């Protein structure tokens, strides 16, 4: 079956995007990517810590992945733009996940600043995937500003609480023509499958895999759940009847009138 996810003209082979934060050891990351069959992988940017330089993250990423740096740490559009430009300088491509968070209590994204950042970065040729609070008007403005996909949150970052924003995300899936990728909040494979059954184009999972007892096994489970959910969505819902047989038919008048002779 012809079911391709295309973002900014590029075909993406997997609908499970993986975050690389919170892993105990970078050496787990290539195994996780392989087990999940993931292609898009997010990374972050930070100042070099001279006391503890550690290893080079890039050494652990397979050659065929699409690296999507995020702008975590940005509290404004200007900071997000600055981080995105630095990210591109690493030579890992044009993809960027815009993440502007000025709320330190719930870590909810700032849609307003995000829209401004998208507008600037899209003009500079970035493939911009904004992390956002699922608000329809904000999403429409993001589309107009040049976003390549829309990434609403299912629940606040790192909470593993599932798709608490279900109704709002469903509206985005119905109304937005770009891929809608559920980012943040997905804590279990069943929730990833739920997002895919709703019609999400992909999901982005980090904490749920990184903090599992066995991250590699969990990555595989998520990969299977995403495929199953997508398959269910494509298969279409069964024809359960919502409505009972009518006690008083609304179209009976048509039969009556036809007898009279039309």
């Amino acid at each position: 079956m012809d079911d391709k996810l295309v973002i900014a003209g590029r075909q993406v082979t997997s609908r499970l995007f993986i975050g690389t934060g919170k892993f105990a050891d970078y050496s787990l990351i290539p195994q996780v990517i392989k087990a999940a069959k993931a292609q898009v992988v997010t990374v972050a940017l930070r100042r070099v810590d001279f006391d503890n330089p550690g290893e080079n993250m890039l050494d652990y990423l397979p050659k065929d992945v699409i690296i999507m740096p995020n702008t975590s740490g940005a509290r404004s559009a200007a900071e997000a733009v600055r981080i995105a430009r630095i990210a591109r300088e690493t030579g890992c491509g044009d993809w960027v996940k815009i993440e502007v968070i000025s709320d330190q209590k719930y870590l909810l994204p700032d849609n307003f600043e995000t829209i401004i950042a998208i507008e600037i970065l899209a003009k500079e040729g970035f493939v911009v995937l904004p992390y956002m609070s699922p608000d329809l008007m904000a999403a429409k403005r993001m589309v107009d500003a040049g976003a390549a996909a829309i990434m609403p949150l299912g629940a606040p970052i790192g909470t593993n609480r599932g798709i608490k924003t279900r109704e709002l995300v469903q509206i985005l899936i119905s109304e937005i023509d770009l891929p809608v990728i559920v980012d943040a909040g997905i804590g279990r494979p069943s929730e990833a499958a739920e997002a895919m059954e709703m019609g999400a184009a992909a999901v982005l999972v980090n904490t749920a895999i990184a903090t599992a007892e066995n991250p590699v096994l969990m990555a595989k489970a998520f990969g299977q759940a995403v495929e199953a959910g997508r398959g269910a969505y494509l298969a279409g819902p069964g024809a359960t009847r919502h409505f009972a047989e009518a006690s008083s038919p609304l179209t009976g008048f048509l039969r009556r009138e036809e007898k009279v002779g039309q």
Partner: protein
Amino acid sequence: MTFYDEIVRLGGMDLAGFLERVTPSHVTNVLAKSDLQSQDFLALLSPQAAPFLEDMAQAAHRLTLQHFGRTILLYTPLYLSNYCVNQCVYCGFNATNTIERRKLTLAEVELEAKAIAETGLQHLLILTGESRQHSPISYIRDCVSVLRRYFSSISIEIYPLSADEYADLIAAGVDGLTIYQEAYEEKVYSLLHPKGPKRDYRFRLEAPERGGQAGIRAINIGPLLGLHEWRSEVFKAGVHAAYLQNRFPDIEISVSFPRMRPQFGDYRPGFPVSDRDLVQSILALRLFLPRAGITISTRERKELRDNLVKLGVTKMSAGSSTAIGGHTDARDSIGQFEISDRRSVDEMRRGIAHLGYKPILKDWHDLGREGKKVCQTTPIS
């Protein structure tokens, strides 16, 4: 990108083939969905959906109650002028028809306004033929400034305008735009409109979005049923409405289903639409676009209109006359088409109430420009 691009895309698709291939289980699957895509809408317009009409009616009834409650908005048309330079082969105002041509003076407009306002109606639809000589924008603007003293909502159904001209009339007090494409199939459209500015299919097709850009509050579109094969025409009108809803989320979008009526002249519709076809069209549109307005005019007879109230209709005309000065002048002048439902506004109000619905005379009050958005960031195009 405009809706014309979308029409071109639809033109390249095999709609007839799709309609043929629809299966009964396809229809039941669509009926189980809560969010319909355009191909689902087309499936509901197929012959194979006809046996499911009652199921569709129950679902449409439920959705309409959910979004509109038990209400029917009433409005009436006011014909300002029947001068026309077009030769639409199906229309009583056709430039080649030898009928008495007239336009209302501002004093006559005021008399008509008073007569209509006395019935309690607050929503008015003003119409003219297409003649920039006899009914220019300035004339319409002058009429509107008289009428706005009597009505809370004034819609126009006139020749297509530029965005600037729409903005001009909006500033004068117009809040609604009604414009029917008549025939969405461009080849058919060309045949039906042999002469005059109306020949420009694209300028007419894009008129609703120009009105949207100009800041209109409500848009009402539709195909003229009977001119061409109804399934594809209703499909394209529905996709047009969906396009407008998507592009202008803050504008109230409605669809009308006018059926060809006998009029002065000898044109007879080549593609008659039965009551059953009309009902299927209305139901399919309601399921496709749960929050779109659906308008039925007095072209349809009383008994049918009463039955349509529960099937998704949200607006009806009342106390209509399609003749110039018809609200005050007893003379039997020739109208654009014949009226079927001749009930007075009062009788309509009682009739709707009798069906358990509330007739609405006013759902909009213009506060001037006060309601304009104060914060503009990235505009939605």
